[in-house]
């Protein structure tokens, strides 16, 4: 297992924010973490990528305890574990040009200045041109900023990409572009993707495995399709109902009808 947690507990203050967590992520897998705000999703991924510390129990990356990684080999650990957040505007310094923000991780973690050619390659990965380099964050759209945040995370060739509500601040149409980009990059680069969302529709669509969290605990986990077809907990059922209340009957209209027929044959 690439990422593992056993009996993981964490608290910011008196109350436990995370309790008794068990989790394992295989290399190159896609894990979706779903739950309402306040359920502890962000805390969990921040712990797993080493942005916060102080958990009790075990959390391992590549067989080694994350606390130990951070103590002995923090840079190496951070190169392997990158994260993008919901609000890209807040993770990019508003006073810095995009070029400066974009090159930060390589400068900090690899102690070198990337070439323009490299930078252009990162931008090409996320479908942007070098015209954005001289801009400031406020001059770009939410979708563009999220692409830049992704390019920045990928600049150090990570093994695991954590995405914490990466599309919650975006329109449905921009969201589709960013989700496609993430699926694409994952395949092309063999990334392990851990994707957090409060929206079951997104996790259900994007991930192979999923975890349902409530009040800091995992209420259900398993292969996404199993969980969605046959939810074991009432809470998962509530989330499924909430997502279905705002679903569309089919996605992609005509094309999707064909897709349904195909899957109908395949499963029957």
């Amino acid at each position, binding site marked *: 297992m690439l990422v593992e947690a056993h009996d993981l507990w964490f608290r910011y203050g008196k109350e436990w924010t995370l309790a008794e967590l068990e989790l394992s992520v295989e290399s190159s897998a896609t894990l979706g973490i779903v739950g309402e705000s306040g359920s502890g999703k962000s805390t969990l991924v921040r712990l797993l990528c080493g942005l916060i510390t102080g958990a009790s129990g075990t959390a391992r990356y590549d067989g080694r305890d994350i606390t130990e990684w951070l103590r002995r080999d923090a840079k190496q650990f951070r190169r392997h574990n990158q994260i993008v957040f919901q609000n890209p505007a807040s993770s990019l310094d508003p006073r810095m040009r995009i070029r400066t923000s974009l090159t930060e991780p390589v400068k900090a973690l690899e102690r070198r200045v990337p070439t323009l050619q490299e930078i252009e390659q990162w931008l090409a990965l996320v479908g942007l041109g070098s015209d954005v380099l001289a801009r400031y964050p406020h001059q770009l759209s939410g979708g563009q900023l999220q692409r830049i945040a992704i390019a920045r995370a990928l600049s150090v060739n990570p093994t695991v990409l954590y995405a914490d509500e990466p599309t919650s601040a975006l329109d449905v149409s921009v969201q*589709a572009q960013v989700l496609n980009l993430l699926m694409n990059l994952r395949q092309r680069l063999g990334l392990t993707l851990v994707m957090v969302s*409060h929206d079951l529709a997104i996790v259900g669509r994007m991930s192979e495995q999923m975890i349902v969290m409530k009040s800091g605990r995992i209420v259900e986990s398993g292969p996404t399709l199993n969980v969605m077809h046959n939810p074991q907990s009432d809470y998962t059922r509530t989330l499924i109902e909430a997502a279905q*209340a*705002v679903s*569309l*009957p089919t*996605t992609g209209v*005509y094309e999707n009808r064909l897709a349904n027929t195909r*899957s109908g044959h395949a499963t029957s």
Partner: protein
Amino acid sequence: MLGVRDLSVRIGRHEIVSIDELDLPAGRRLGLVGESGSGKTMTAMSLAGLAPAEARQCGSIVLDGHELVGLGDKQLARVRGAQMGVIFQDPLRALNPTMRIGRQIDEAVRLHANLSRAERRERVLELMSHVQLSEPERLVRRYPHQLSGGQRQRVLIAMAIASGPRLLIADEPTTALDVTVQKEILGLLVRLSEERQMALLFVSHDLGVVRAVCEYVAVLYGGRLVETGPVRTVIHRPRHRYTEALIGANPGHASADDLAAVNGRQLTAIPGVVPSIDAFPIGCRFRDRCAHAVAACADDPPMERLAGEHRFACFNPTIAAKEWELDGNAR
């Protein structure tokens, strides 16, 4: 209730809203849908008589027998105050952070009715129970930051319905909320609209949300009405390529079977971005992003009328719809 005819709203050289015809009958719910920058907010604001001062309107907007186009600010405010309530996406910004909840609702009540203090207090608690805020006596003493996002949105709804409006305008009211809270708030809006015979003009970028709430939908792009009709018809049988594209971009799925077919697969995203207001192509404004554009699309597509109030303006509409028409004939 609300009727729009040949409405054009211009700011400077740019026409930012253009709607030939749109109706919202009393007590019914209409969704305005499109990406950001497609003109939903501008349209809703114009219909509410809240267009910015520099906007020039022509055409006609009739609200409950009153023509709004050409009215002065004061007259507009009078019509609005009596007929219309408005709620926005970000409840925290719409509430005063330093004032207790009870006082804020009370001020909304006071604007519309001349009541004694005791009567007003009664009314505030009653409004809070209408929007299903539990323990209202305790909540009135709280400040906005002490409430959850869903509670704050309920407070705003309570304030918006204080005047007993016949039309409620809601601009992306649940975008910032969890899906479970969203479901409750959407349910509340539908219930209030039904119980009070209050029409709802509902703005969202998410067709799934519009489907859940509204009976009618108007799809906007580049400030223009591109397709409109009963929500079921438009979502099941869209004709305009932009509507089709919006549906394809939605990650939602109605059933587990749908999900099995699409899990891990790419969404049909709409390429490119909504241009800025001065950069839309001539002719069909969606032309530079449309996978089905033909030579004719360099002209303005005329609105076509189908059965059942379904209208669209597209030169190369979806095949699904054609197939449906055949179905219809066969049946």
